[in-house]
C-alpha cells in the first residue's frame, strides 16, 4: 500500500499464520462489515498480535479479527488512528489463554474507537494506554476481564458504550514506573455498565487480575475524572469504586491517589448482591468494612499522610451530586488507624459541591 490508498477487503473468511502489520501513513483499510470480512488467526504461528499498526492517519473499518494468539489489534505510536465498526473476538468464550487486548492503542494521539465490538479478551476488550486525545464511543465490550480500560492516558471521552458481562465494566487506571503517567481529564458518560458477572479470568500478575467480578466502573489514581449520566446496574460487587494504587512503589514521579473526581447524575441499579470475595482485596475489604451492606459508590478514602492530618485541599476533593437513594461509603483512614469501631462515612451530603464540567474532547476531522 502507498500513502493515500484505500484497501478494500471483500467479504470472506481469511486465515493467517502470521501477524499482519501496517506501517504506511494516510491509508484506509476497509472490509464489508464486521460480520462479513473476517480475519482469522486461530492457526497463527508467529507475531505477537493479529494486526499491528505503526503509522499515522490510519482508518480501519468494517472487519473482524478473531482468535489472535496475543493482542488482536495493537497500535503503537500512531498520530491519528480511527477504528470504526470493527470486531475483535476470541470465539471460545472467556479463557485465560485468550489474548490480552482486543483494541490496544498505546503511545498514540488522536485515537477514535467508534462502533466497535470487543469480546473475550483476557485483559481488556478496549484498552487505551499512555495515549492522548481519545474518544471511545458507541462500542460494545462483553465477556472480557475489563470491558473498557483507559490507562495512563490524558484527555479521553468514553461515552455511549455498553459494557456488560465482563468482570469489570469500565476502568480508568494509572500505574507507576511508566514513561507516561499521571492520567487525567477523563470523561465517562452515557454508558451502560451493567451485569458484569464473568469470573475474573485474567492470568495472575496483571493489575486487572485483582479486579473483583461485578464492578461497574473503577477509577484508580487519576485526576480530573468526570463520571456522569451512566447506568450502572447488576454489578454483584459494587457499581462505582474510586481508589488509590495500593501496591508499594518507589517511583518518585508517581501520584497514587485519585483527585478532583466528579460524579453526578448517574443511574444506579442493583449492586453488591454477589460480592466476589475471592479476587483481589477490594471486594473483601469493602464487604468487611460495610458488614455486608455494600454501597453503590465506594471511595477508599486514602490520601497522602499530610492530608489525613490537615485535610484535602478544597479543589482536590471528590464531588458527588447523586439522588438521595444512592448509597455511598468511604473510610476515614485516621479513624481506621486509631481503631474506631466504625471508621466509615456514608453521608453523601459532605461531598456535595459545584460540578465543573470538563471540556469535551475534540479530534480534528472527526
Amino acid at each position, binding site marked *: 500500500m502507498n500513502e493515500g490508498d484505500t484497501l478494500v477487503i471483500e467479504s470472506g473468511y481469511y486465515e493467517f499464520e502470521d501477524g499482519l502489520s501496517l506501517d504506511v501513513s494516510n491509508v484506509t483499510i476497509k472490509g464489508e462489515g464486521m460480520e462479513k470480512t473476517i480475519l482469522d488467526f486461530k492457526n497463527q504461528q508467529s507475531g505477537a498480535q493479529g494486526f499491528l499498526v505503526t503509522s499515522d492517519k490510519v482508518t480501519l473499518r468494517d472487519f473482524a479479527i478473531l482468535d489472535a494468539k496475543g493482542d488482536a489489534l495493537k497500535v503503537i505510536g500512531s498520530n491519528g488512528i480511527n477504528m470504526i465498526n470493527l470486531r475483535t473476538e476470541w470465539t471460545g468464550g472467556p479463557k485465560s489463554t485468550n489474548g490480552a*487486548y482486543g483494541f490496544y492503542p498505546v503511545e498514540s494521539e488522536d485515537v477514535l474507537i467508534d462502533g466497535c465490538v470487543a469480546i473475550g479478551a483476557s485483559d481488556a476488550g478496549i484498552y487505551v494506554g499512555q495515549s492522548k486525545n481519545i474518544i471511545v464511543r458507541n462500542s460494545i465490550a462483553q465477556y472480557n476481564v475489563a470491558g473498557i480500560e483507559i490507562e495512563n492516558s490524558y484527555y479521553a471521552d468514553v461515552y455511549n458504550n455498553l459494557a456488560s458481562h465482563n468482570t469489570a465494566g469500565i476502568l480508568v487506571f494509572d500505574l507507576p514506573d511508566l514513561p507516561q503517567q499521571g492520567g487525567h481529564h477523563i470523561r465517562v458518560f452515557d454508558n451502560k455498565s451493567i451485569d458484569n458477572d464473568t469470573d475474573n479470568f485474567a492470568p495472575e500478575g496483571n493489575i486487572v487480575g485483582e479486579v473483583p467480578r461485578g464492578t461497574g466502573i473503577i477509577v484508580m489514581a487519576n485526576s480530573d475524572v468526570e463520571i456522569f449520566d451512566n447506568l450502572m446496574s447488576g454489578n454483584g460487587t459494587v457499581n462505582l469504586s474510586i481508589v488509590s494504587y495500593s501496591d508499594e512503589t518507589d517511583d518518585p514521579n508517581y501520584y497514587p491517589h485519585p483527585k478532583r473526581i466528579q460524579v453526578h447524575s448517574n443511574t444506579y441499579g442493583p449492586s453488591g448482591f454477589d460480592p466476589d470475595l475471592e479476587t483481589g482485596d477490594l471486594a473483601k475489604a469493602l464487604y468487611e468494612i460495610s458488614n455486608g451492606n455494600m454501597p453503590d459508590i465506594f471511595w477508599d478514602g486514602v490520601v497522602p499522610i499530610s492530608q489525613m492530618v490537615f485535610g484535602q485541599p478544597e479543589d482536590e476533593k471528590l464531588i458527588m451530586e447523586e439522588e438521595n437513594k444512592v448509597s455511598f461509603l468511604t473510610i476515614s483512614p485516621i479513624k481506621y488507624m486509631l481503631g474506631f469501631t466504625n471508621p466509615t462515612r456514608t453521608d453523601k451530603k459532605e461531598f456535595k459541591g459545584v460540578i465543573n464540567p470538563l471540556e469535551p474532547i475534540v479530534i480534528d476531522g472527526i
Partner: protein
Amino acid sequence: MKNTVQILIVLMLCMRSFAVNDNLIMAETFPKKLSDFAFFYDNSAQVPHEDVIPYELISTLFSDYSYKQRWVYVPNNKKAKYKESWVFDFPIGSALIKTFYYPVDERNPELGKNLLETRLLLRKESGWEAVSYAWNDEQTEAFKKVAGKTINVSWIDFMGEEKEVRYRVPNVNQCKECHAANDKTTPIGPKARNINKEFTYKDGEFNQLAYWMDRQIIDNYPLDLVSPVDWTDESQNMNDRVRSYLDVNCGHCHSPTGNANSTGLYLHLNETRDTHLGVYKKPVATGRGSGGLKYSIVPGKPDESILLHRMISMDPGVMMPESGRALTHEEAVEMVREWILLMEN
C-alpha cells in the same frame, strides 16, 4: 599454464572495474535481486567486493540458532562518525549487509550451507531503510521479499541431531519493530563498543575498530572504550554476560527510545535502576504473557520470573522477542536462570 595466467589477469581486470552500485543503495525503490547491488563478486559464495568489509559483533541476537555473516559498506571518501553509546553515524550511501544461514551439518562445515536471507539496511537521503532478500532453492540469487517469507529448514547440529525450524523472513514492518529508535529506523549492532574485538581478515588478524580506522570508514573511536563481554565466554563475570546478552537481544526495544518503551522494562546496557531492569517489577500490559507470574524478576526464583518465562515460551502470544524466534535459546535460558537464582534479594 599460460592460459590460466591470462584468464586470471582478465578476471582481475574484471574485478577492478566491478563496483558496488551506489545509485541503487540511494534509489527510492529496492531492486528485485540482491546481485544488482554488486556487494559480492560471487553472490552464491558470498565473496564480497573489497570495499565491503566483513565484521562481527561481540554478542549477537539469537535467531533460532541460525548463523550470520555481516558486512559494512561505506562509500569511497566518506566516513562514519563515532557516537558515544550508539551506532556509528554512517554517511548517506552506506549499507549494512547481513546473511542468515544454517550449515548443512554443524560438525562438518565442508558440507556447505543453506543461505536463507540477506537483510540490508541502506542509508538513503531520507534515513535508513530496511529490506530483506530471500535466497532461492538453487542458492544462486536472493530476491526481494517485502511481505516476508516462511522457510521450513533443517540442519544437523553439533550433537548430530536433526533440527527443524519454521524460519520467518521478516516483512519490512517487522524490521522496524526492532530497528527503531524514537520512531526512526536505525541499525542496532555496529556500536563501537559492540565491535571492539579481533577479527581475522584476509590480510591478518586486527581489532575491528583499528581496521575500520585504517580503511578510513570511520572518523574516530575512543581507546578507553568499555565494551560488553561475549556472553558465551564462561570465564567472564555472570552479571556482565547476562547484561550483554539482554542488551543485544532485548535492549533495542526495551529501552526508553525503543519500541517497547511503554512497558517500563529497560534491558539495555546503560540501565541501572532495579525496578526498570525488572526486579520486582509488575507487568503492565502483559496479558497472558505473564504466565500467572507477578514480577519480571523475582531474585532467587527464576521459575517465578516473567522474563525467563517469556524467554522459554514458544507461544507467539507469550514469547519474547515478539518476532525472529521460533525456538528456545536453551543456553541463554540456563544462564539467565542461574543469574536470577544467584541474585540477592
